[in-house]
């Protein structure tokens, strides 16, 4: 993943960059599988590696495949800023409990109740689904609205322009 990330930064030809981001997502999905988060890995593989790569390629077809180079004078402050941000983020993870630690705060609050009670209350083998759709039904409803809004936004920005331009084309053809 590190090699892929460096390649994404260095390569200027955006077509390769898009393919490499797909590869990056696929590797992330593999890591999620190793961490036993199969549902998340599923989503990452389908959305990150699949659909978003195709959408990026579609965007490239509309715009350009060459990245604009920025001047060297800007690179030094940007590097300092990103190193500081990375250091702060790593410092933040130092306080976090170890992976798989049963005493972590997240496992003390509602997780035991979900795991123990969902067999009696919902009786589904996949606890992820019962948490997602039932215990956290409001959140999932909100996520559905987010996707709905995203599609509406895309339609509002570029979906209608096509029809208008078609009309213009027809008018232009009628004139000539």
């Amino acid at each position: 993943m590190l090699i892929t990330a460096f390649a994404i930064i260095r390569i200027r030809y955006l077509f390769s960059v898009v393919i490499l981001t797909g590869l990056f997502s696929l590797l992330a999905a593999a890591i999620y599988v190793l961490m036993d988060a199969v549902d998340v890995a599923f989503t990452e593989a389908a959305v990150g590696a699949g659909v978003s790569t195709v959408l990026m390629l579609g965007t490239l077809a509309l715009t350009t495949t060459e990245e604009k180079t920025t001047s060297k004078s800007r690179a030094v402050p940007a590097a300092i800023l990103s190193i500081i941000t990375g250091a702060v983020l790593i410092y933040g993870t130092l306080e976090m409990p170890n992976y798989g630690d049963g005493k972590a705060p997240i496992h003390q609050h509602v997780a035991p109740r979900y795991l123990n009670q969902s067999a009696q209350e919902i009786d589904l083998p996949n606890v992820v689904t019962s948490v997602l759709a039932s215990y956290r039904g409001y959140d999932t409803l909100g996520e559905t609205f987010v996707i709905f809004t995203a599609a509406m936004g895309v339609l509002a920005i570029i979906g209608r322009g096509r029809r208008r331009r078609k009309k213009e084309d027809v008018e232009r053809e009628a004139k000539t």
Partner: protein
Amino acid sequence: MKRADMRIMQHRVILRVISKFLIPFILLFGLYVQWHGDFGPGGGFQAGVIFAAAFILYALIFGVDKTRQAVPAWITRGGLAVGVLIYAGVGVATLFLGENFLDYNALAHDPIHGQHLGILLVELGVGVTVCCAMITIFIAFTGRGRK
């Protein structure tokens, strides 16, 4: 047809045959993930994306116009709203049945059956919205470059 065009068509024969062969299986896998999300990994979101991926593959190989013939704009745009309405409608239905919003216990006589039914309907709503959103966004992007 020019000779160069014909050569491109010949190159695409493999892609066309293989994708036509694959698309039914992708759709079937999407449905499996949709309805089997209760028992294994998966659910409405993943199923919607896989289902949409089949249409996107079709659009990549056969062009946007043919895809629009298969799924007209009113289906995907309507589906966007229908999915959200199914989800919110389940919530409103539980309200009318005398429980809290999105409390599926009220949907059937047995609370567990109610939960099963509620989760199934809600996942269906998520799947429909996600699938239609992906197709809509993809076609909006690719259809724009066309003259």
